[in-house]
């Protein structure tokens, strides 16, 4: 192994593998494992929600903070970008908790699955499939329990696929990428206003005081056909002496 390879291995060992091993041997992990082994739904969901709140909450804080202080983002857009990050982050947490409790929830998913595919796995259908299978020469002596296990296996795989796909489409695409930005964008207008609530009016320095006419936008004045009529930019009855 090359020297670089050895150092990489060492770094991986010290920085990642050893801390992971220590984490795996911590006492509280025994408690977590016990709950997962006993399939305690409330604990598992609670931990899932806590992870979302921690990860997305921290992410939201970093994104908002960094956007606010990112001088490379144009100043007029900076607050909106940060406001959008904040609205997005908050809504994302709320949406994920909602999804976790509904579409991505195993109990809800199993109800949806039963409604859509349950008829292929009910008692009558199983009996039908069993008689077809038993009609095949090599399964003629297939014991009942083995057939049951086979059907259960297929049901389990199909359910896992169904759960994954519904979560992916409903939670990941529709929830997080359609509903959240749709609500977050107008909400960002309000968030931006809220973020600017304490902004003091800018003190005008006499050296940088705006002494340009602001009655008509400069861009309009500078349009080619109007370049020669600077003197006509004010209405005749404006009272100004031209």
């Amino acid at each position, binding site marked *: 192994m090359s020297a670089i390879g050895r150092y990489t291995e060492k770094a991986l060992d010290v920085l990642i593998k050893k801390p992971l091993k220590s*984490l*795996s041997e911590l006492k509280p992990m*025994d408690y*977590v494992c016990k*709950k997962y*082994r006993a399939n305690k739904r409330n604990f598992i969901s609670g931990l899932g929600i806590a*992870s979302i709140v*921690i*990860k997305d909450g*921290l992410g939201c804080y*970093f994104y908002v903070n*960094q956007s606010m202080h*990112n001088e*490379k983002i*144009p100043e007029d*857009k900076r607050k*909106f*970008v940060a406001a*959008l990050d904040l609205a997005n982050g908050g809504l994302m947490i709320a949406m994920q908790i909602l999804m976790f409790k509904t579409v991505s929830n195993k109990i809800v998913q199993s109800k949806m699955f039963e409604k859509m*595919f349950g008829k*292929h796995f009910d008692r*009558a*259908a199983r*009996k*039908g*499939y069993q008689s*077809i*299978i038993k*009609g095949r020469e*090599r*399964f003629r002596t297939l014991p009942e*329990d083995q057939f049951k*296990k*086979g059907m259960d*296996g*297929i049901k389990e*795989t*199909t359910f896992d*696929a169904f759960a*994954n*796909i519904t979560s*992916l489409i409903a939670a*990941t*695409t529709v929830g*997080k*990428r*359609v509903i959240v*930005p*749709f609500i977050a*964008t*107008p909400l960002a*207008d309000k968030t931006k206003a809220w973020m600017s609530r304490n902004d003091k009016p800018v003190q005008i320095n006499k050296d940088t005081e705006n*002494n*340009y*006419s602001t009655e008509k936008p*400069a*861009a309009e004045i500078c349009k080619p056909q109007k370049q020669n009529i*600077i003197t006509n*930019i004010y209405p005749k009855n404006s009272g*100004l002496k031209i």
Partner: protein
Amino acid sequence: MMKVVEKINSQASCGGIPVSKKQAYQPSFSAKANPKDLQKELHALMPSSLKLMNKLAKNMGEIQNIVFNALATGLVAPIFIKWNPLSKTDEDTRTYSAWRQPISAVLAVVTQAGITAPFNTLINNMANSGYLGEKYNKSAIRDDNYIEKLIKKESPNITKEQLKKKLITKKAEQTQDILTSLRSKNTIMLKNYKGETVPMSKSEYKNLLIETVEGIISDLEETKKELETKSKRRKARGEYLRTHNKEAKKVLEEINEELQKPNSLKEFKSYLSKKIKNLRSSKANPELIQMVKEVAGRAPATRQHDKATDNAIIKAMRGKVTKMLGHTERYGNTKTAKEVIEAVNNSIKGQFDAVKESKEFFDSIKKAINENSITLAEIEKRIADKFGASKNELLNKNFAVEVVEKLKKNITNNLKGFKQIAGVIVSCAILPFTCALLNWVYPIFMDAVFPNLSNKKHDNEASALVAKAPKKVEVKQ
């Protein structure tokens, strides 16, 4: 249970170990069909919607999930930011903000595929090698991927076909080793983080045996509940057949007569669905409608419509009607509701007794494990003595296989919990970097690709306009 049984059966069919050894270690599985073949056959039967679902499940790995998520972020979300009818912010600002999504999607693919996915692989490898704590130690029941990796490391030039064969042999050896160790040493031998082979700690092993027995007891309780439901259902059906015997007999005989005709399955199905409609419109007893539905249900949705399949279904439908006619006869002879209940209780009593006896037996085994007074080999001997002659799988347990299966389930669940906690820690640790990366790349990208939306054009345009704008003073003059 499935995977270990699968393994054992695949050994039986692939000949990974000598026949004498196979017979010694898998007495109750040697005569059975391979579960993989059975699943393949069932998959071929199931309707297309289920096939599609399973195909998607097979192809949706972690990377595909990450890419799908990124596509949704990069392509869908910006639409709802830029063209949002509810927002009052100017379009330039919204466009500028919307472009953050595809950039963050690309970065998410890079960081997730580069960190999260390898991180999960690393944890799996650590569990397979025995580096993690004992609760996550998979060294005695290694995953196929890990075994393949080891084989490739041993023989880098191995062909695909050779790899497949070697994997089967290694898996057979692995199953053999763990079953031997359980039966002869009353423990499971594991590799520890130093690579040494050590026995599983006594407390962990004892806990595993207890949880296995508890699993069996819980299955028995589930069976008892199913039997109770069955008993209730039978009593309701029996009572209906007693009180409406003529009505049921007439309908069933009609159906039986129709099903004896040399018609096609399609015709039978259409006949039964019409029959159900007619019964519904004539407001027939729901129990009778349910009975006809059960006959129709014997024809499940299938993709295969060959003669053999159709004949098997027709045979099942005829068999169901004959059975129901038998029940009609039996309960028609009963005089009172009490007699029906007694008849049902007698028909199901044997199964209830078997479950009760089995539960008591496993309760006593659990007690013995708790008192450290029994080994796995002794448990197997007691099961063989008690239920050896029974053909009922519920009673005649292959205990060592049950233990291996429980171990596998336990480690999978423990790893789920571990990955959840470790995942949060790692995600939080890399968050400052991913955020900083996005904040660095985003303005650079916008300056380069959309200068009209970013500072670049802003500065230029602003200064150009300023230069051309009339001053108040000029205007007044």
